[in-house]
């Protein structure tokens, strides 16, 4: 297979995974949510091709890896600038019920 064909195959693989995942999971989720959930599920468009949100840093070369970043503008995904990044605020202890748990997995 030519290099171009391999690249196309890779792209198609991502497309298949994306569309398959969206369709199967939205049907499953819709069925579990009932009518109210169905509206929210089906409101999500299905793009023609999945584009990775973790686009590689430009200019990376063999084993010369820069800090990868996510393309989203979300506050949690800013570029790390080549090093591990501390949070904007340290955690604070609270007396509220937890929404999630972090532990040995």
């Amino acid at each position, binding site marked *: *297979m030519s290099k171009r064909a391999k*690249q*196309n*195959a*890779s*792209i*198609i*693989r*991502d497309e*298949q*995974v*994306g569309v398959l*995942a*969206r369709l199967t*999971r939205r049907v499953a*989720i*819709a069925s*579990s*949510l009932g009518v109210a*959930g169905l509206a*929210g*599920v089906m409101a*999500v468009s299905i793009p023609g091709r*999945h*584009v990775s*949100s973790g*686009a590689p840093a430009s*200019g990376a070369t*063999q*084993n010369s*890896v820069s*800090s990868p970043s*996510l393309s*989203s503008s*979300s*506050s*949690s995904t*800013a570029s790390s600038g080549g090093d*591990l*990044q*501390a*949070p*904007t*605020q*340290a*955690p*604070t*202890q*609270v*007396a*509220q*019920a*937890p*929404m*999630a*748990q*972090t*532990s*040995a*997995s």
Partner: protein
Amino acid sequence: MKVVEPAINPAPGVSPEPAINEQAATGMPVYSAAWTALGTSVQVVATDRHDLSAAVAEVQEELVLVDVSTSRFRADSELSMVEAKGGSWVDISETLFDYIEVALWAARLTHGAVDPTVGNALCLLGYDLDFDLLEKRGPAGVFRVKPVPGWEAVRLDASGMRMQVPDGVHIDLGATAKARCADRAAARAAALTGSGVLVSLGGDIATAGPAPAGGWTIEVGEGPEVGSSEDLVVAIRSGGMATSSITGRRWARGDGWAHHLIDPATGLSTDGPWRTVTVAANRCLDANIASTAALVMGHSALSFLGRYPLPARLVAQDGVVTTLAGWPREPNADWRRGPGSIGAS
């Protein structure tokens, strides 16, 4: 041009049936869904009830992507196919490129403490199946182990979007892929919905979008038994949090026990002064790299974490808790403040 299309099999570890919690269970206006996938627990929390289902769908798609791209337990994963062509340059997808790039970045940052070429070592120690199956199989034998090949052996070419893995080298992305997946999924879900979203993959927690009032509240524990009255609950407003521990994912070997955190220098499970490390960072990925590296580095973890500085909680083998860089003090814990801590209460 006719393109040969690779066969895509359903991800065997993904359960498409999240249990939706439509109630604001914590007293805060958030809504959550939980299920299992890829041998671990998955939880999605959204600040808007109507955006939860869309957020869940984004997370599930990202889970499928990471599984078919990076799993070492699937012979048909893209990573397995690259390894099967040992020594050759292989064109790869953007998804696999991203996960490999992250893994090599982690290795470089940690001077090899977090190394993706531990696949062979894990197999030799008996971790050659999905963990659920591993527990059912029974004790693994005893094998001679050796240092891992080293992350420098893996070559990545951004200009050609391709990679090269030496023949016989097996990659395990367990130290970075789950956290990266959580970050990617949370970012996607928040970008799509506009809501605040928390994604937890086996306790690797990523957040994106606006936080709920009071922040995202997270219980910090050591094992699946979290939920005791003594467990710490903390709040973060952004970023991520991860816990690495030798108390989970352990299995019997002929000569004792092994766990999934490998010291690349020996090829054996780590055996340092810490049993559990929790770190907060601006991303789940950064937090998980740091927590994993801390367990491997042992005593030098304190200077490593303090360099950034990352808020962290380290539990020693004797249960004493050391905190760094503003991690809140726990009144009920046997506690000491780590050297160089900033603002520890």
